[in-house]
């Protein structure tokens, strides 16, 4: 037994070493310029922040922000679709140079990827539910199946604090299908995406009934340790707030201007 435990711990140490061993060379900005192309991880199923048009190209608010970065650097852009459960790993492994993928800024995430200050956006958690259930408070979800997305941080909270049974799928399309089929009573997700979804055809009988919780800032991220690139992105973000670019994009993509974006614009104006 003792040797087995030693063996397990040994293996885990090896794993941890491998994890910490991935220190990127700190010249990402030069590498990108030399390659002439920047690989940006964006969402492909998150309307209107990052999604695909009918030809399969990435469009939305975040791809446009990424385009700004590419233009500023004078390089080509390559979009890499990411999902919540692999986006940080893609950045660690160098599959992408920059991640703008609706990621909530959290302390433990800051240990793994270089989240840029100031935050570029913010959103909270809410649910999309059929009007007939008439949910009023989060506790109403107690004991009921609620659809979610695999890897979303609020799944745990929704089940731990409010007693909901989370049924989590890989992508939003599967979750919406399960919600419409009646496999779950609600879909717990970012309020920013739900607002856009509830306006779509086929969702007339759905609403966003609960008070938004966990209003939290989003962070775009560069690989850990890339200080030069991070500073560059900081300036970019401040520019976006200063010029009102975020507000402009929200309007363009049919999102009501969020309090966060307005406040940041006021702050840097």
């Amino acid at each position, binding site marked *: 037994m003792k040797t087995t435990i030693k063996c*397990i711990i040994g293996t885990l140490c090896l794993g941890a070493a491998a994890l910490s061993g991935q220190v990127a060379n700190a010249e990402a900005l030069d590498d990108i310029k030399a390659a002439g192309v920047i690989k940006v991880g964006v969402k492909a199923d998150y309307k209107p922040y990052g999604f695909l048009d009918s030809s399969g190209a990435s469009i939305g608010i975040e791809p446009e922000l990424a385009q700004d970065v590419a233009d500023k650097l004078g390089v080509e852009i390559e979009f890499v679709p990411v999902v919540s459960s692999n986006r*940080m*790993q893609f950045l660690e492994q160098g599959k992408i140079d920059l991640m703008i993928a609706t990621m909530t800024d959290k302390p433990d995430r800051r240990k*793994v990827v270089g989240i840029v200050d100031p935050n570029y956006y913010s959103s909270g958690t809410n649910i999309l539910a059929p009007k007939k259930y008439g949910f009023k408070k989060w506790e109403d979800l107690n004991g009921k199946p609620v659809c979610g997305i695999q890897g979303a*941080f609020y799944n*745990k909270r929704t089940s731990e604090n409010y007693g909901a049974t989370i049924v989590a799928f890989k992508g939003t399309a599967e979750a919406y299908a399960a919600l419409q*089929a009646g496999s779950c009573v609600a879909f717990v997700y970012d309020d920013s995406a739900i607002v856009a979804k509830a306006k779509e055809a086929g969702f007339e009988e759905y609403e966003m009934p609960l008070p938004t919780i966990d209003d939290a800032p989003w962070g775009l991220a560069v690989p850990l340790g890339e200080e030069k690139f991070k500073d560059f992105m900081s300036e970019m973000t401040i520019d976006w707030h200063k010029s009102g670019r975020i507000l402009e994009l929200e309007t363009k993509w049919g999102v009501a201007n969020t309090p966060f974006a307005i406040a940041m614009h006021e702050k840097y104006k």
Partner: protein
Amino acid sequence: MQEYFEWFRILYEETGINLPFLYDSYDRNRMFQGFLMTIKLSVVCLFFSVIIGIIGAWLQGSSLKWTRRIVDAYIQLFRNTPPLVQLYFFYFAIGSLMPKVATEWGGEAPLLGNFAWAVISLSFFAGAFNVEIFRSGIEAVPNSTVEAAEALGFSKFQIYKDITLPLAFRVCLPSLNNNLVNLVKTTTLAYAIAVPEMLYEANQIWSDNVNVTEMMLFLLFAYFILVGALVWCTNRWERALRIPGYGS
């Protein structure tokens, strides 16, 4: 007990090796539930896939042309399509066409949930292979043995049940076990339709705690132990069923 678990929290703080499914009671509970779900799904699917195999192989020997054709069509359909596609097809395509039943919270849910669909899909998938495996065993039983049974007045069903199948079983057991081991590993696909088995729970834990490497190692280790136990049992089974002098 909690003191032992607390040790792993210290391990995390000291070394960065994060094993929340040991020190965090919520994560520990869901990991354990996931482990139980994997076992439950495996056992139920193993059972049904073997039953499907036995019945399918019996029907394959039918004298009716259409019975044989239907069994063949089933085998081709399930053997030639990926199990993940089958799962999605059953759950999202067939599942949404199923009659709905009223739920206790006043809504309507499909008749069969994700666990039921996972069982159906995976059992039929492994069952298709099992039919062919049993057929290989049945064809290995000498004709003369079957003829001798016929001469003794056994009915067709009796011959299958008492003569052919027991002998065939011993011949095809190694390949059957192979397929069953594969089935246990294939249960991980059920996480695509949100059956909360081990991979699903591990995925949620590594998303919450950003400890992918540790969870991957744990998963590999857990499945190694789980499948190892199954292989040990099947090996014992093979030895127990051995007929001295039969086969080689």
